[in-house]
């Protein structure tokens, strides 16, 4: 038992003397996290597109229509750019823009006279969401225009003089519309019917960048550190220190348990610092810091044992390195460490959630969002512990059965 703590102290001393070798394992996840946060910013990801508009009417009505696209929330998603029709068609054909809207000459007159008119919308097939938003918005605006024309058509037609309207006309039309609104007030305010709305949040779509991406990055860091620390057993073998230990009375079980405690303490420290930084700097929501730290510690240690068993099974240090990478990288890719499950095709996400790290990430996200209760967490920790015990015994058996020779 005493040797166990001597081993832990020795491992920490080695890290203290050469912290870079351990820290270098975090380079890839850190670089990815910084790059992604630069791309998406801290808050919720908002797609941005470009709406090309060929306004051949250039009237008050067409400008009001374009103004609607410039107001929130559409204004946050779309940049409206006026173009000539030919130029707009050429650009949308090149895929430069989300959609092209052509407002024909005579649009205002047709609208005010309640005559049919045709707006043309060309969408970019390479984009899926933004062109649909433009199409739906335009459809709503056209419907709205129909009702406005029916209710206030007479007042609006006063503007149809072909010249800029004088101030007294604007004032009288405004007063007239105000009277009209007052007469409709009893239908409009309060509304004739109550509408109760309940927003059922889709966690996949409502999560912030930090909540979506950082758990993946954190687990990527865990995997890489676990791999690096597992490969250290080969360094010890090549240094001859394992052989020297084997001819001493110190039990190999204490050595391995000491290594495990060291690894767990590294993960606990990393989790504490990493989560505090992610919460403070990137706004990662953490419902329970102790539970999150505990989970990362347990999950990281179990991943370490998994890679350690693989490293011990290898015939050479080089083979251990190759085998470790062959396991860690695909696991990271498909298990939600490089890309969150939300960004994957559904079939891949389904497989990824079944990988050890994929399963651990899902539990971790539930802990972060506070969606897991203490009982479920205890069951998950017990499961991890059981698997870890089995892998510990396998690793110990391999150490005792000739790994050092």
């Amino acid at each position, binding site marked *: 038992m*005493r*040797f166990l703590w*001597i081993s832990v102290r*020795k491992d920490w*001393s*080695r890290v203290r*003397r*050469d912290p870079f070798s351990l820290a270098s394992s975090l380079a890839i996840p850190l670089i990815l996290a910084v790059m992604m946060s630069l791309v998406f910013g801290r808050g919720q990801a908002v797609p941005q597109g470009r709406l090309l508009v060929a306004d051949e009417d250039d009237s008050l009505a067409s400008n009001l229509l374009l103004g609607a696209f410039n107001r929130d929330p559409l204004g946050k998603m779309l940049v409206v750019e006026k173009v000539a029709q030919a130029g707009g068609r050429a650009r949308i054909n090149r895929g430069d823009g989300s959609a092209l809207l052509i407002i024909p000459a005579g649009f205002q007159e047709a609208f005010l006279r309640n005559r049919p008119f045709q707006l043309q919308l060309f969408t970019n097939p390479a984009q899926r969401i933004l062109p649909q938003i433009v199409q739906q918005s335009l459809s709503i605006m056209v419907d709205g225009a129909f009702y406005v024309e029916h209710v206030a058509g007479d007042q609006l037609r006063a503007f149809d003089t072909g010249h800029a309207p004088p101030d007294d006309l604007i004032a009288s039309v405004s007063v007239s519309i105000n009277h009209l609104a007052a007469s409709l007030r009893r239908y409009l305010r309060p509304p004739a019917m109550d509408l109760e709305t309940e927003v059922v949040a889709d966690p996949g779509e409502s999560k912030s960048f930090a909540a979506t991406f950082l758990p993946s990055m954190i687990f990527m860091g865990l995997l890489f550190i676990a791999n690096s620390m597992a490969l250290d057993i080969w360094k010890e073998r090549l*240094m*001859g*220190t394992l*052989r*020297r*230990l*084997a*001819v*001493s*009375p*110190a039990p190999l079980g204490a050595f391995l348990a000491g290594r495990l405690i060291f690894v767990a303490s590294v993960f606990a420290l990393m989790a504490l610092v990493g989560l505090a930084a992610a919460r403070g700097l990137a706004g990662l929501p953490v419902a329970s810091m102790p539970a999150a730290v505990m989970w990362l510690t347990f999950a990281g240690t179990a991943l370490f044992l998994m890679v350690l068993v693989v490293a011990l099974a290898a015939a050479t240090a080089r083979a251990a390195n190759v085998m470790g990478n062959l396991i860690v990288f695909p696991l990271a890719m498909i298990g939600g460490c490089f890309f969150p499950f939300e960004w994957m095709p559904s079939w891949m996400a389904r497989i990824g959630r079944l990988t050890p790290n994929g399963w651990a990430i899902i539990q971790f996200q539930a802990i972060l969002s506070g969606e897991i209760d203490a009982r479920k967490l205890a069951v998950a920790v017990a499961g991890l512990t059981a698997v870890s015990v089995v892998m510990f015994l396998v690793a110990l058996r391999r150490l005792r059965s000739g790994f*050092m*020779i």
Partner: protein
Amino acid sequence: MIEVAQLRKSFGELTAVDGVSFTAGRGEIFGLLGPNGAGKTTIISCISGLVTPSSGHVRVDGHDAVRDGPAARRVLGVVPQEISLYEDLSAVENLAYWGGAQGMRQPALGERMRTVLELTGLEDRTREPVKRFSGGMKRRLNFACGIIHEPKVLLLDEPTVGVDPQSRVRLLELVRAQARDGACVLYTTHYMEEAASLCDRLAIVDHGRIIAAGTLAELRAMLAERDLLRLSGSFQAEAAKAALAHIDGIEVLQADAELLILALPEASRRLPAIFAALAAAGSEVRGTTLTQPSLESLFIKLTGKELRE
């Protein structure tokens, strides 16, 4: 303190140790001398419990190395051939770790650490990472870690390989000091002069077998005080052998197209007769080396090859 009886170890088809037996007692330095690959390290590995023998018995201070491994290991100190240290740790940290592995506790450990650092001349570099040490200093620390717990039985596996002459002298003196203090030392080497100057008794090992054993004097007597004469040049081996057979007391140890090795008494006085016989047999001698009786000449006599081959 070390009893090895009919020790045999095979790795698949390869028999690394083949029926080795010897004993070494308290205060004695017993040497295993042989070329690389002779089986010396495997013998040490069997004694230290790192490798399980295929057959035979090993006892260390009365404890069976296989059945009573932990008890045997408690009295053992091992200085491996490779430098088995944590190079990113300091000398003190290494000694504390290996002392802890031997079950030592403070304050005895601290006291002993100071002693061995002084013995090995490393007392001025105690806090420095080992990776900054010279090769000789690393060897000395490697030795210090092996004796930190004052073992009754000390196994040294070629501890002076790659060491500068100054460190080698110091290391050999440290080994003698361990024996003087009552430890039983088993020392493997392929350096003849080291074995000759250090060991009380020796076993010459080749191809996993002991081919000769005894004190240095006993081994030298096996050569019957004969010199070793090496002749290089161009020879017709069979004709040369036949021509030399007429000269009294000559034994041909090796004969091929370019080299003749002969064992004979008073070789320098008989050189003219040898050259004449070889010339008559159509041989041409271009170089001559005369060696007085030594372990090396004994090894060549026993195996027909040089030790460093």
